[in-house]
């Protein structure tokens, strides 16, 4: 067992920390988030220049061969800086589905463009009726000679409004919740029959509702084996779940630190409010929650290289922790800031909103506790 990180890993983490310090203060973040695009295209180019967009991909695809440790380190920093660029949607979700698919000419072309920052992509991972069930898919793909015809609605497609390429899971067979019969299609967003309604989200991301009406997709745009898409989809969602949990750990740590700092400086009754024991114990509790979350994160990161059911179970454990203890830290941070905590002007409110969104993304605490139970049952059966 070894908790230390390599020099390269620490350089990666430091480079993001430095970027936030120099180029991404809260004011800048707010300006970027308020713009039409919802993120900075210029800074996205910087992400690519600095190599961050390449980290998760394999060397043969032009990547840097990074794994869960690298992903964790990056996401923690992104959380601290409250970055709004579509790293999760483009790199972890869409890029993740592509990189897990078998080689093809198109795949290589897309991956190269994702890595060099010139392509924005999205994974349409949910439908309106699905709640958090990844396999609940009603979008259909009908085979027609050497192409497919897609019909259906995808909701909450992160980055979906601006993406050039959409990865769409659709049913080539089976019923609504069957695990078999799901196929992944890489669909150019300007295909005939694709319509998108874009919107911003409460946590300053952008998303879209996408409807597909008789969208014709070529055979070569099928990712992986027909009917076998769930494995790739689920592995990608699991990694994304892990990623947002790492981001959340960065967020709650920052909220906790800022709160401690605030209570040292805010005077009421002639003393810093941090001198009240009632508040001291509350902050000790949030510290414990941060440490416990950090520990589960490390454990999950180390176990995740396996990508087996133990790894998936650890992701659910971590997500449950963030959905409970993480949410608690966020609420306490707002409360201990008093009125200031609920102002738009202060960053605390925006950390709070991002953490709230993360607590929902890819399944809330209840969902992941249930999934954890399922894994436990499987392992004793």
């Amino acid at each position: 067992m070894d908790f230390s990180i390599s020099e390269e890993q620490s350089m990666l983490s430091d480079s993001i920390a430095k970027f936030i310090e120099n180029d991404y203060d809260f004011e800048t973040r707010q300006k970027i988030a308020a713009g039409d695009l919802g993120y900075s295209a210029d800074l996205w180019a910087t992400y690519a220049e600095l190599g961050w967009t390449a980290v998760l991909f394999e060397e043969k695809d032009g990547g840097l061969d990074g794994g869960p440790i690298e992903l964790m380190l990056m996401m923690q920093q992104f959380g601290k800086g409250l970055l709004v660029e579509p790293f999760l949607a483009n790199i972890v979700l869409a890029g993740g589905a592509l990189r897990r698919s078998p080689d093809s000419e198109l795949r290589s072309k897309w991956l190269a463009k994702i890595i060099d920052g010139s392509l924005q992509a999205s994974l349409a991972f949910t439908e309106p009726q699905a709640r958090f069930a990844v396999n609940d898919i009603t979008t259909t793909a009908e085979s027609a000679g050497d192409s497919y015809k897609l019909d259906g609605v995808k909701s909450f497609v992160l980055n979906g409004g601006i993406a050039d390429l959409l990865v769409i899971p659709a049913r080539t067979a089976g019923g609504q919740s069957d695990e078999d019969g799901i196929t992944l299609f890489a669909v150019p967003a300007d295909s005939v029959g694709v319509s998108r309604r874009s919107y911003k989200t409460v946590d300053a991301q952008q998303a879209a509702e996408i409807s597909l009406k008789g969208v014709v997709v070529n055979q070569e745009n099928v990712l992986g084996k027909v009917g076998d898409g769930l494995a790739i989809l689920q592995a990608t969602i699991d990694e994304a779940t892990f990623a947002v949990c790492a981001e959340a750990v960065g967020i709650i740590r920052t909220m906790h630190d800022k709160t401690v700092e605030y209570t040292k400086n805010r005077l009421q009754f002639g003393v810093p409010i941090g001198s009240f024991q009632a508040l001291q114990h509350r902050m000790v509790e949030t510290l414990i929650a941060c440490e416990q979350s950090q520990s589960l994160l490390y454990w999950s990161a180390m176990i995740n290289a396996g990508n087996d059911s133990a790894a998936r179970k650890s992701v659910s454990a971590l997500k449950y922790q963030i959905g409970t203890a993480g949410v608690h830290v966020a609420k306490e941070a707002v409360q201990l800031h008093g009125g200031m905590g609920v102002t738009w002007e202060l960053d605390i409110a925006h950390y709070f909103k991002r953490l709230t969104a993360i607590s929902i993304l890819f399944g809330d605490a209840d969902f992941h506790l249930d999934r954890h139970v399922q894994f436990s049952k499987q392992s004793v059966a």
Partner: protein
Amino acid sequence: MNVDFSAEELQFQEQVRAFFAAKFPQDIKQKCDGGIALTREDYVRWQKILFKQGWAAINWPTEYGGTGWTVIQKYIFANEMAQANAPDIIPFGMKMVAPVIYTYGTAAQRDRFLPDILASNAWWCQGYSEPGSGSDLASLKMKATRTVDHYVVSGTKTWTTLAHMADWIFCLVRTSSDVARRQQGISFLLVDMNTPGVTVKPIITIEGEREVNEVHFEDVKVPLENLVGEEGKGWTYGKVLLQHERTNIAGVARSKYRLQQIGKRAATSVNDAQPLINDQNFARRLSALEIELRALEYTELRTLAAVAVGKAPGPESSILKVRGTELQQAIDEFEVTLAGYFALPYVPKQYALEFPESERIGHLADTRSSLIYFNNRKASIYGGSNEIQKNIVSKHVLGL
């Protein structure tokens, strides 16, 4: 002990229910049902309907236009109002400043201010908190210096809810610093918002809307007759008012209504999804909240019964505030759970009745749920934070 209403009370309940069914404007109800913010005009229109019925000032003595209702009648009214999903009366005039004016004000002040409050002609806001004085309200600095015929007021009030819509503000001001206890230098002053030197600046809250403000006073001249009661007694008057605020703050009836709505919605298929009530986690959480709320309802009823036999709402009202706001916030969060991903779109322009349904991202109730959850984090902060309430209970109930 007996949990039933009497025949007269049941009849009263029928009367109130019929009134809400007939008189609560449909367009305002639609907004309330969709979680859409009401305009000042909406509030005024509705409050004037209540006024016409004689039901605007539930707690006032009858001589000033109050209802003279029993505790049970008030409880019935609050429940029916919540069941109709009608908005609460904006509290600052009717529930906060009016009791101070009719208890401590002069006859001239009562004649001048109460009728306009009762008829919702004048809109009030509460100027207590200052940037440096939140929980420690007695440290407030806004200065009022007396001259021959007026006070000159300078300083800053903050977090002032709806000040941008208000005609009047009631303020706690410092009239003296030369006193043994700093509370003794505080006075209760009524200020016309149109007086030169008063400026209102918006504070945008977490969810992105304007509800609170910073109010600056620069050498504002306030006539001496706008002082309520005696100079230096403002703290005592203000505290009476805060205790009223705290009993009103529990919001049990409304929480009950919201839980019922959650239950109903969860029993149906929203967006063609499985009814969420079939999810054990969800069903258990719903029941747990129902149980907590029932307990609070009866805690409030016990408090009200004590008030009915002549005991003033004391520090126990702090318990209602703490538990009431905790439950409100738990329900806010529960609504977000119900909404799932649909809690996340942030599309301000669609939070309007005129917005075409077919263009809306998600159902209104779902996409508003997160904003309500964010905004209502305030509930455990304002009206004396929940930490301060617990300090009060520790000191005055437990004697610690």
